[in-house]
């Protein structure tokens, strides 16, 4: 009687110990995670690093020669750098969070008063000095304040940059803030790159050197970020500016990327990133490359169809918002409400059915359950 019992106990202990010497195969979930980080997120970080480097160069050129041509180039470079950053919001794991790149590069709102105080000061606005600023005095939104002017347009920007009193200081800030942003983007990319920070490989080193002890934890991280992004678009980028939590009175000051009128572009890039993670492919509508959607389809074709359809509807509704976005919000344009409704449906679906289909845990922590 003792031997079978001993055998069962031994087998149970082996199972319970989670012996990592036993190889874990590349099942569909691990393949999904590998696909998403290698084919979607890592390329976005590379494009971000390249774009930020181009922005640094364009900003330096603008600082040296503040004219319309260089301003246009710097503005285009700002948009081109921001786009992959917004798409990469679909999976903000690892260095971007752990090393606070998200805060350093994209704090909203920027503190114009404090930036102005620095510009009016006497400290040399070197890249190193600006890099040491608090998050609300640098990054994309801080740069945006000096590259764009929603009210006065490019003439107002050039006037500010060529102002006899503070123009040069402003140009120094623009050049140094862009250099700091480029340095952060390069460091973030390096943290992911194989052979350097290696996070792209560590993510799928389940139970080993990576951040995730189990396949489920890794899958949950991917799925959770899709949920968080849908909530972010719905609440922070649409709902609050529309005044949804404040009795319906629009609050245009809460519109992000208002100076560049990039709010709609930001949301479209966010949604493209979400789709890329879902499809496992950066090219929208391309061959389904084994993203989250492949797992959902295995569990429920109905839910998969719904997610895809709602992604498409949200993208179309957001794209239909008239520009400038801040004006559309203030005017309570019906297209803004339609975009909010479409994003709300998407958020409901990813927060309930997508989570349920994959047995994911919508977790923000490691709490026990039972």
């Amino acid at each position, binding site marked *: 009687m003792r031997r079978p019992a001993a055998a069962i106990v031994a087998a149970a202990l082996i*199972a319970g110990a989670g012996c990592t010497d036993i190889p874990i195969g590349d099942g569909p979930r691990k393949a999904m995670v590998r696909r998403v980080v290698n084919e979607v997120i890592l390329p976005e970080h590379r494009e971000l690093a390249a774009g930020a480097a181009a922005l640094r160069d364009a900003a330096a050129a603008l600082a040296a020669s503040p004219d319309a041509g260089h301003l246009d180039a710097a503005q285009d470079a700002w948009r081109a750098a921001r786009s992959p950053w917004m798409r990469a919001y679909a999976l903000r794991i690892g260095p971007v969070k752990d090393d606070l790149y998200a805060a350093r590069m994209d704090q909203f709102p920027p503190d114009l008063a404090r930036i102005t105080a620095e510009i009016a000061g006497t400290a040399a606005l070197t890249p190193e000095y600006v890099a040491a600023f608090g998050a609300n005095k640098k990054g994309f939104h801080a740069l945006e304040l000096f590259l764009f002017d929603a009210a006065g347009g490019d003439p107002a920007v050039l006037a500010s940059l060529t102002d006899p009193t503070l123009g040069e200081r402003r140009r120094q800030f623009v050049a140094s803030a862009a250099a700091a942003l480029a340095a952060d983007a390069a460091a973030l990319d390096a943290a992911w790159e194989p052979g350097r920070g290696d996070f792209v490989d560590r993510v799928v080193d389940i139970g080993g050197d990576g951040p995730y002890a189990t396949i489920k934890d890794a899958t949950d991280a991917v799925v959770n970020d899709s949920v968080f992004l849908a909530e972010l678009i719905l609440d922070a980028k649409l709902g609050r500016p529309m005044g949804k939590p404040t009795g*319906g009175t629009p609050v245009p000051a809460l519109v992000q990327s208002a100076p560049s009128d990039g709010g709609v572009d930001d949301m479209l890039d966010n949604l493209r990133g979400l789709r890329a993670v879902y499809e496992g492919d950066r090219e929208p509508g391309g061959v389904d490359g084994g993203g989250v959607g492949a797992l959902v389809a295995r569990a429920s074709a109905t839910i998969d169809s719904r997610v895809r359809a709602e992604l498409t509807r949200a993208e179309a509704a957001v794209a239909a918002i008239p520009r400038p976005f801040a004006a559309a919000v203030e005017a309570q344009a019906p297209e803004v409400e339609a975009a909010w409704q479409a994003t709300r449906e998407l958020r409901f679906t990813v927060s309930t059915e997508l989570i349920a289909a994959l047995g994911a845990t919508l977790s923000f922590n490691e709490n026990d359950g039972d």
Partner: protein
Amino acid sequence: MTATEPDRAGLVGRASRALTAPVDASSLIAFRIAFGALMAIAAVRFSAHGWIAEHYLEPTHFFHYAGFGWVRPLPGAGMYVCFALIGACAVAVAIGFCYRAAALGLAVLFAYAHLCDKTNYLNHYYLLILLALLLVVLPLGQVGSVDAWRRRRRGAPVPSTLPAWPIWVLRGQLALVYVYGGVAKLQPDWLVHAQPLDTWLAARPDVPLVGGLFAQPWAPQAVSWAAAIFDLTIAGWLLWPRSRRMAYPVVIAFHLLTARLFHIGMFPWVMIALTPIFFAPDWPRRVLRLRQVAPGSPPPAPPRRRARLLAAALVAYFAVQILFPLRFLLYPGNHLWTEQGFRFAWKVMVMEKSGVADFVVRDPDTGREWRVPATDYWTRYQASMMATQPDMILEAAHVVADDFRRRGVRAPEVRADVLVSLNGRPRQRLVDPAVDLAAERDGVAPYRWLLAAPEMDPP
């Protein structure tokens, strides 16, 4: 006296004699040590994971149990002190130092910590609270303890045995957990559709040895039935001496597997460590090859009146423990959907449910509306847990209403926009969006503002 009365008196008498008969105390000592150690680990774990800050300091609003709305987390470092005291009491219980006071302190403090917020309800926390309360009345500090050692040094008599009834009390409590865990699985989603295990097992292909098996089409159904049969019968197998030696390894295997599959914290280790109470009372001596205890001095019998009061209290306790988990049968509809009668019923890991809840506040005087994300008042974790539990949704609506009254809205109406997916089904509205929840009162009656459960089968 009728013909049956002597039999009944004989039965009661025999039961009474059996329950008060002196038995080897070593299994009870082992239980006390294991329980105290587990509670101490739980206290340390809570702090080490940062859950004290997350559960008690970060939230600005809490969800309350009925009758316990006055319970609030201590400010500042207070909850850290609370958990430190829980740990200290747990160690004292384990070693049997000032045992009864330590057990009472442990029960009160642990219960307090979990009464602060319904968000954090877990069946195994409930079990730990019940066991801690039981330990207050069980004489587990009389033998094999620091207290016993101190009494012996003072020359006071120290029993070498304990009566059998504490063993049966603990066995009964643990048996109820298993049996009702099995009862919770007697429903179509679990037995017919193998949900939620179908979804959960697919999410865990990396479990060593068995991960590959989980991908087999027959696996979810087989595991669902096996788990139900295990829960419903394991107490019996553990009680029967002939099956006990095979049953306990199965207990270990089952709980180790659940520990590997799910984030369920201390629960597997609690059950593994405490189910040896089903063994013979002298099992630790046999395992450790210690000498058997001499018949020696039995524990002093308590005064007759106290003994009767204790017996009556335990009978009442178990009557409640048997009946209370069944209250879900009094409510209409699918209890997985409505969750009325769900808590305190040992419904452990029986569903996959995710939801989203927002609130729409309307000022009837002006017609103005506010759409309030739940995260404006609660942490993401609280909002996520609230979204699937109607009693918490109702309380949330009242919190929002109270806040808007403070902001100057005379009679705010609060409606809830709640969508839920149950066991992989498409999402569906849980709450009637037309009902002003601020005007609804909580109570034991069925919630009239809940919408019908989804009719379609899970995938």
